[in-house]
């Protein structure tokens, strides 16, 4: 592992019983980047994160975080990684102040002012009990405690889930502020594509436990093209188009998203015999949705399988 990578997995695989949830994952996160980890529920994002954090042992393969195998994490390694749990779990009986206290005692490098600042951004009363807080406020406390530990790497598991627009903005601001030095790294699993497009510079898409996309945001957009074809028949039934990510009907027309288009794919599209062929823009959302929809079409969809 070279020094510029904070996360590196090698053929990381995890089975639950007979079912492979993460398959042969080769994934790297360069230092200083903000990586959006995208995927449907059950695609293996949380399982991957749990393996990176050393909470779950890989069935085979390995993962290294900050230069150390996750299986052998020592407390000082863990304290260099900030982590928020899916759903922003906090002990419901604690007061916000007690959360800060608990964090201070369990993290070696605790930055109390950082906690104060983050909590204030989310508009939280430090005397409030966690069980009284709204979901957005809970997220605020969770993120504040994570950032106050002054980690080098932030691994956030779906931090924006169920947040109101104000909290979402506060969350994004916090992440931007965290990584502005360019030395600290964020791995962010999310379902909110707009937010990912804003804050991330790299994107990784997991489909059914496999990593299909792992590149910069611009590279991802740049290497996808889309065409709208006017034809009666489903184009996927005519013949294969190389690099076809997804094909969806738009009224009487078909929207085709192609990855890494080349002459072969262009000629394959021409040979489909469409009445009209029109290239269209690919937005970030379109691109991700094309990948994610593919999973739903090809495979049975299971929700909540990760938890």
């Amino acid at each position, binding site marked *: 592992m070279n020094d510029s990578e904070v996360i590196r997995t090698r053929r990381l695989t995890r089975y639950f019983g007979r079912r492979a949830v993460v398959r042969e994952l080769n994934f790297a996160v360069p230092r200083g980047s903000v990586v959006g980890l995208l995927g449907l529920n059950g695609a293996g994002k949380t399982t991957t994160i749990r393996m990176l954090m050393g909470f779950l042992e890989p069935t085979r393969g390995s993962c290294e975080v900050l230069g150390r195998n996750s299986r052998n994490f020592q407390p000082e390694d863990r304290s260099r990684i900030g982590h928020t749990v899916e759903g922003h779990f906090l002990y419901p009986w604690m007061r916000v102040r007690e959360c800060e206290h608990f964090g201070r005692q369990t993290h070696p490098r605790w930055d109390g002012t950082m906690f104060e600042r983050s909590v204030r951004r989310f508009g939280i009363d430090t005397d409030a009990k966690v069980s009284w807080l709204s979901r957005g406020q809970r997220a605020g406390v969770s993120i504040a405690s994570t950032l106050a530990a002054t980690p080098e790497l932030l691994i956030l598991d779906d931090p924006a889930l169920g947040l109101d627009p104000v909290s979402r903005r506060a969350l994004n*601001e916090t992440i931007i502020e965290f990584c502005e030095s360019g030395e600290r790294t964020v791995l962010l699993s999310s379902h909110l594509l707009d937010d990912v497009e804003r804050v991330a510079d790299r994107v990784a898409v997991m489909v059914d436990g496999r990593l299909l996309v792992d590149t910069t945001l611009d590279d991802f957009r740049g290497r996808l093209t889309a065409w709208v074809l006017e034809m009666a028949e489903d184009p996927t039934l005519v013949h294969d188009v190389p690099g076809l990510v997804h094909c969806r009907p738009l009224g009487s027309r078909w929207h085709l998203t192609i990855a890494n288009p080349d002459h072969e794919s262009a000629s394959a599209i021409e040979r489909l015999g469409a009445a009209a062929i029109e290239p269209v823009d690919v937005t970030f959302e379109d691109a991700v949705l094309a990948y994610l929809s593919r999973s739903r079409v090809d495979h049975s969809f299971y929700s909540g399988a990760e938890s």
Partner: protein
Amino acid sequence: MRIRVIPGSGAAIYRQIADQIRRGIASGKLSIGDPLPSVRQLAKELVINPNTVAKAYGELTRDGVLETRAGRGVFVAARRNVFSHAERLRRLDEAIDAVISESITLGFDRDQTLTRLRNKLDALQGAKE
């Protein structure tokens, strides 16, 4: 001037920023020597990744629209011809081609298009003066 970004649109965010700065300079909202917010500041303001801002600034600097003065920040550069005359003509033709094809699609005739173009140029002139 105020820059806004809209995620989820057809254009990448760095492109949106670069385009808005170019437009600001063209419309005179930004003049030569005007300072621009630092990468960090703008990223914070827009809540976007600093690398995205850096990329937009980088492209504009490469095109000679902005210049970086060491230790002082980013400024609107004096117009320099970083491209050859032929290249500049090719780029202009490209842009005009797009306007023409759009105006034909929308059903405007030649005079209407020309008048419109002339009015816009006059307005720009007026704004500068």
